[in-house]
């Protein structure tokens, strides 16, 4: 049962990432692309968690935490750049 659920979840996450890549390439404006990148790092954390379940190891969760931290900081930095024209004032 867990095997089938894992496969369904993996397929859904890969489809979600493909939709994010579509919005990243098509997106008419800059904030659309930024939003697509923001969603992509969240989805990649889900993919890392699924890999940990698949390989039955907890080694990769530190990298998931690192991606969460750096993704948030980079989103905030690019937003500040677009808002003020400068990151650190």
């Amino acid at each position: 049962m867990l095997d089938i659920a894992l496969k369904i979840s993996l397929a859904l996450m890969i489809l979600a990432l493909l939709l994010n890549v579509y919005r990243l390439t098509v997106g008419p404006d800059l904030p659309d692309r930024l939003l697509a990148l923001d969603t992509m790092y969240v989805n990649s954390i889900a993919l890392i968690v699924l890999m940990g379940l698949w390989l039955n190891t907890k080694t990769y969760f530190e990298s998931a935490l690192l991606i969460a931290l750096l993704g948030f900081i980079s989103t905030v930095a690019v937003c500040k750049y677009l808002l003020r024209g400068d990151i650190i004032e």
Partner: protein
Amino acid sequence: MTLYVVLEGIIAFFLVAGGVFAFIGSLGLAHLRDFYMRLHGTTKATTLGIGCMLTASMLYFWVIEGKPDIQEVLITLFLFITAPVSAHLLAKTGLHLQLRHIDKTGGSPPELRAEEIGKRPIPHRDHGHG
């Protein structure tokens, strides 16, 4: 024996629910027509999906190893705290850049309506400064 079957069912439910929620969020990101609608779709649904998935992972390793672990809770907590902040900043960026939007979205700074301020502006009270 039966307990493990029930736990496996719960973990499988959380996994599929997380995948479905994340997929719906990304479908909204690809399908909706407006930046603010896309922001609305992806911020809520994807965060809930990743929360379900991390809960499933935490339950799985709890059952396997026999003791709970704080790491997944930490990732979930951090994502749940940071997602509204980044969404707020993205919305502010969209307002600042004055993106195109359909009329019903209302993507402009809120202004006071006419019936809230009356016909003419209320003058400040004179405190007798001269």
